[in-house]
């Protein structure tokens, strides 16, 4: 299983990759913003994308919109601090598969991933 982890915070990318490693996902690729993520998405095959919302260059919502516009239907989970209803609706309408709110622990992450892929 190959996962693309997108967050402008280097620390958060490390946190998410560590959490993924802890639940058995070893093949992780990182991107620091939506623009870099879209380039990597086009160049490789991923089983899942975990993306932050607020990022420079291209935010998470814009990234999701661009990915879905290519016809790709891989699962995309938005990882963010903000879980208010309006934002959740906007994210789902853009094509987000699920939402993961920070702070989260490894078991919450595993439960989210189990819905879409076999770890």
């Amino acid at each position, binding site marked *: 299983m190959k996962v693309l982890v997108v967050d402008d*915070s*280097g*620390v*958060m990318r*490390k*946190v998410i990759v*560590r959490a993924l490693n802890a639940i058995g996902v070893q093949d992780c690729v990182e991107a620091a913003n939506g623009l870099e993520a879209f380039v990597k998405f086009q160049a490789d095959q991923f089983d899942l994308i975990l993306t932050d919302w*607020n990022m*420079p260059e291209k935010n998470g919502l814009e990234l999701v919109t661009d990915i879905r516009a290519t016809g790709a239907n891989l699962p995309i989970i938005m990882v*963010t*601090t*903000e*879980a*208010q209803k*309006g934002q959740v609706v906007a994210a789902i309408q853009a094509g987000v598969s699920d939402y993961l*709110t*920070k*702070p*989260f*622990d490894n078991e919450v992450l595993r439960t989210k991933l189990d819905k879409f892929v076999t770890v």
Partner: protein
Amino acid sequence: MSIAIETQIQSVYLPAFIESTKAIFKTMLGLELSVQATDKLNAIQPGHDVTGIIGLAGSIEGTIIVSVEKEVAFAAAETFIGERPDSVNGDVLDLVGELANMIGGGAKDRLNIPGVILGLPTTVSGNDYKISFKPDVEIETVQFKSPSGSLTIQIAMRRPA
């Protein structure tokens, strides 16, 4: 008007920020926080080694300042990324900014007030500086204690016109 915003900060905003801070430190860092004191200020001298600052706009206008002793930041980094830094490096600054981001987001979620926008966090290292606000801003401080050291959350809110 000034009484109304003070009451609102103390009875509504402060509890949301306190709960958010405690939840984040407990869930992501495994650290139990206890509230040591709360206080009102006119200006802010964070007083700790690393500070994350994040703005609020829209239906609430204000600033959240999260200041931590470096031992708290180092313990957090060790938990988050598996390595304990020996100085306030890029990862530590990034981490404290992310803590401010999560605290702001968690409080925003608890307040459930529509139209609130969180800015991008800024981080500062060192403590020999002061943050000043305009006269129409109310500032409340919460001091916490953790097993690794102290941290402070300051909430600066503009009074409604």
